[in-house]
């Protein structure tokens, strides 16, 4: 379990990015953190494996404190982060080597490594690119390689810090379905930081950040019943939820707390195709 206790973060300039945030991320959970630009969500992400240390409060993984230098390597092996810009995460000239880079630094034996790298590439559907040059790949493919690099370290927690922000809609869907599969089949804990409200629908629990604090918390269904509040803090609801709310407001159909497309389509058909 990742435990964030009363964490604040203040930059040297005096600007505050997080104020008294407490959050527990349970093993095997799929958690989504949403918030506008500058809400503190990326700062929080970087706290999860000690890339940033709190100026107040503590972040612990199963009791290991991220501010304890002796534990840091172990924490980083268990909590992997994939960032927004794929180009900044590629370090070698061959995909296979890139995926092996992390575990190599952890001292994983060569024969184990080869197996892990192959498996990681298979998990993200990139096995046929093992010997390709990463810079020839598309943005979405590069992000899959970055995720494979994390998987090769066999992490317990995978953090995606706006990892889909620079991808086209189909590239984004690919990454999401891969992540969902890793969560469902391997039980990896997923923490997804995003500005795309659609992506929050994949999560079991959504945390909404605003002004360095946690503003709301709940299931996607609960959170997206609060469209007005979300808009007032620079966010939005998924297009499907917007449609649902508009249908209710105009008196065409009341679809309750429906959030996904299938549910909404069925609801519309039920209301309007009575015969």
């Amino acid at each position: 379990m990742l435990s964030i206790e009363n964490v604040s973060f203040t930059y040297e300039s005096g600007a505050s990015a997080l104020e008294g945030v407490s959050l527990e991320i349970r093993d095997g959970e799929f958690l989504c953190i949403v918030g506008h630009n500058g809400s503190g969500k990326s700062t929080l992400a970087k706290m999860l494996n000690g890339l940033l240390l709190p100026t107040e409060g503590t972040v612990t993984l199963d009791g290991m404190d991220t501010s304890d230098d002796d534990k840091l390597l172990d924490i980083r092996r268990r909590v992997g982060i994939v960032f927004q810009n794929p180009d900044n995460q590629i370090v070698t000239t061959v995909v296979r080597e890139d995926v092996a880079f992390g575990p190599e630094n952890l001292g994983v034996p060569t024969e184990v490594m080869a197996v892990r790298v192959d498996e990681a590439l298979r998990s993200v559907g990139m096995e046929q690119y093992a010997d390709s040059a990463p810079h020839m790949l598309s943005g979405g493919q590069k992000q899959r390689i970055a995720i494979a690099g994390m998987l090769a370290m066999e992490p317990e927690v995978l953090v995606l810090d706006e990892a889909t922000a620079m991808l086209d809609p189909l590239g984004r869907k690919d990454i999401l379905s891969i992540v969902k599969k890793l969560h469902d089949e391997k039980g990896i804990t997923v923490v997804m930081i995003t500005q795309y409200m659609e992506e929050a629908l994949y999560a079991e629990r959504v945390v909404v950040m605003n002004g360095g604090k946690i503003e709301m918390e709940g299931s996607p269904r609960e959170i997206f019943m609060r469209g007005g509040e979300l808009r007032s803090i620079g966010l939005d609801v998924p297009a499907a939820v917007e449609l649902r709310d508009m249908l209710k407001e105009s008196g065409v159909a009341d679809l309750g707390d429906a959030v996904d497309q299938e549910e909404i389509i069925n609801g519309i058909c039920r209301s309007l195709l009575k015969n």
Partner: protein
Amino acid sequence: MPIVIEKLTHTYQNGSVNAFTALKDISLTISDGEFVGLIGHTGSGKSTLIQMLNGLMQPTEGRVTVDGFDMNDKKQRAKGRALVGMVFQYPDHQLFDETVYKDISFGPKNMKLNEEEIDKRVREAMRLVGLDFDEFAEKSPFELSGGEKRRTALAGIIAMYPKYLVLDEPMAGLDPAGRRAVLEMIDDFRRQLGCAVIMVSHSMDDIARSAEKVVVLRKGEIFRCGTPQEIFSLSDELREMGLEPPFAARMAGELRRRGMDLPKDIYTNEALVKALAEIKGGAHV
């Protein structure tokens, strides 16, 4: 006068075994003040095409003229280029100076404007993109958030008063409020500066909201060019080429498949709700 693209073809590494034709026989006119949305799958030639618009790249065949200036001609290119402002997808690659103020004033300075005019334009551009002068002018661009960087990059281009504004994925990486703000901002300076806008975006919903004309590129060729209504009624064709039609168009398509009688040209939630309200109204009569 417009931007005229005539029979443009571009082949990378022309003549080598790796030759790759990115654009084939593209002809297109961008009129004064027009808002053109450019869509296409990754690799369809969008980036190549927009780089031709301000002469960053020269085509293997055909030509681009900007208000009559031939962009294939080295001398005329500089004059044409001064009319076309480009904002790229990664603002990080576009910002380089010590302060936001200096960064935004770089373009106007190169235009050899006087200090007073430069100052006026920097302030105006910052106001248009919603960056508070007192708060941001002296900040380093590297201290800014993603959204603020993008605004700074946009301000630097607007301060040059381009007649044509070319935007490559201007909303990528922004939060919903940021996306709305950037779209409104683009509308604003189109009104105030009268410039034409050429916007590349993966988001069909953003294109649906803003563009007057939509150009669809497929494998380096123009697949279709038309109004948003015309283009977004082609949901199946768009999907086949890896593009996701606007949300409301997809929903309308699915509802039609389930037997609902909806018009073909729906591509916004507003239009969909209106059409459904009519069905409901009709059912009661």
